């Protein structure tokens, strides 16, 4: 069985299991994202059928929320907080450093597919800014040197 078919069977199973809940679409999309790393376009008709919605409605919801991507990102997700509390502690300078050290801009993935860089507007760590999250784990008071250290650790963990 191909990888794609397996994925769609997972989608089918999730929709089957959750379609009866009130306001089921977001929980379903989260479950698909958790299982597959993204919500692939081929999942849309299955979800639409299961919830008696049009494909446009499902697509509209997926595209509205930052969390739902239609393609898998890099192996590691690096999120930089860009909101005011972090700005007050040098987040703009950190962003410049991060972009030049990773060689990618915000919203991009490195050529080797290892790291995706995304913006986030507040991680709730505003008393110990600037904040960076790597694969959902938040780090406090991150300056340029600390950032490079964290990325180096990521490389070591992978090898």
């Amino acid at each position, binding site marked *: 069985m191909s990888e794609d078919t397996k994925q769609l069977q997972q989608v089918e199973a999730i929709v089957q299991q959750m379609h009866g809940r009130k306001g089921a679409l*977001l929980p379903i999309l989260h479950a698909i994202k958790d299982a597959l790393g993204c919500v692939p376009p081929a999942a849309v008709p299955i979800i639409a059928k299961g919830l008696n919605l049009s494909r446009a409605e499902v697509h509209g*919801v997926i595209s509205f*929320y930052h969390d739902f991507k239609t393609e898998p990102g890099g192996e590691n997700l690096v999120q930089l907080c860009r909101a*005011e509390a972090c700005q007050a502690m040098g987040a703009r300078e950190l962003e410049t450093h991060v972009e030049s050290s990773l060689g990618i801009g915000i919203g991009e993935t490195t050529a080797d597919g290892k790291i995706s860089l995304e913006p986030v507007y507040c991680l709730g760590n*505003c*008393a*110990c800014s600037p904040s960076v999250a790597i694969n959902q784990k*938040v780090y406090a008071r991150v300056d340029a040197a600390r950032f490079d250290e964290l990325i180096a650790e990521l490389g070591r963990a992978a090898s």
Partner: protein
Amino acid sequence: MTKVFIPQDMVAVACGADELAAQVQQQANESGVEITLVRNGSRGLLWLEPLVEVEQGDQRVSLGQVDADDVSSLIRAIADGDLSQHPKFLGDIEQHDYFKCQQRLTFKRAGLADPVCLESYRANGGYAGLTRALAMSPQEIVDEVKESGLRGRGGAAFPTGIKWQTVLDTAGEQKYITCNADEGDSGTFADRLLMEADPYQLIEGMTIAGVAVGATEGFIYLRSEYPLAHRLLDIAIERAQNQGWLGKDIQGSGHDFQLEVRLGAGAYICGEETSMLESLEGKRGMVRSKPPLPAIEGFLASPTVVNNVLTLAAVTTVLAEGAEHYQNFGMGRSRGTMPMQLAGNIKHGGLVELAFGMSLRELVDNIGGGTASGRPVRAIQVGGPLGAYLPESQWDTPLDYESFAAIQAMLGHGGVVVFDDSVDMSLQARFAMEFCAEESCGKCTPCRIGSVRGVEVIDRIRSGTERANNLSLLHDLCDTMEYGSLCAMGGMTPFPVRSAVSHFPEDFGAENLAAGEQQVKSSAEEVTH
């Protein structure tokens, strides 16, 4: 028996608490020192994280900013039964100046124990409010909340009791309690801290709301950026259910209430109540026109209470201690306590729960200790990304809803973000527009298009292109957004922008300044007339 408390709070973990906890346990084992490690919530003194507390006998003492190098000396001190000589020793944390100046009602239990331990919650006064509520009639509960003067802590400050009354009075087969835990404002973290330190308080508050208005189902709409809060709430809900504090026939009262956590998906706008309801229903988070009020037609067109985490939490204190007790804190029409959050460039960042009325200057200078950078404070943004930037001349404003409204500012959700004198206020104004453009739901034109145009106009001002004309244009645009937008997103983005322009004009170009200001004033006057 020695208990060692190391918080599992997200900030503590971001400062290394997980690694620290593992090292403490390992070294204690290796040295044959018997300890019980408790992963508590945070006490809210966030700059001291990881804040370790050690309980021996009836003494509980703390050590601040503990790192790996401190572990072996910590274990030795525990074995000796004397921590007072440890270099990181702080003594009883409740006697710390930062703690002593606070009036902790909502955060009284934060950090005391394992957050999901229901026995600890009950032993420290938990479920006293609901127990009392279960013996009252719905109208009596609503009256008590009205009398307490409690207003919505999410930002809009609407009287909670009046909202509840509307839901109580509206007929409906199924009513709902929804909790807005989409804490997206930068500089705010009180909801997160509460859910990670004392989740049962929120559950209890929602149950009281359910009993009061006749709702049997509740949802916590939690932002996806808070995975720990999600995990802890799920555990707490399950345990409360198992112990008969949720579900059918709560504590034999005949009342039913079931509760579920629903995750947001990274959209700031879903912190707006009608957008949150759309999102809960599984739709795009598009703002609804009001009326109808959510209290009359909310979730799935049914009567729905929408309250912030801190509001629902405060209800437990109101019911447990009585409306009068809660009323006695505060000033004017702002009653009770407000959990303020010190953030940004601040030496002592953390949670400060205070009765309304202290001045902003006192909060930032005396409690917060000034900037982290050691440079002078230049601007303070209160109330999140839609709140005004306040210059020094306004720092004596007392922290209460009406005083802030009087200076075209807002207390909002209590976030205080401090900037030192290196800040470029034109960049901050630009960011306010940029953020609105990024996060607008797109339903109304002033917000959707206005914010994009706002960025462009500010860019022209910053580059010196027809400054005076563009400043005047910016003010026109702010008027359009303020008066023409459907919700607070577009309607209040002008607050940070206007405050930056009018209080920090030097950052918007010195030349042509007088002319620009002139036009700013005249356009403001036109609106008032």
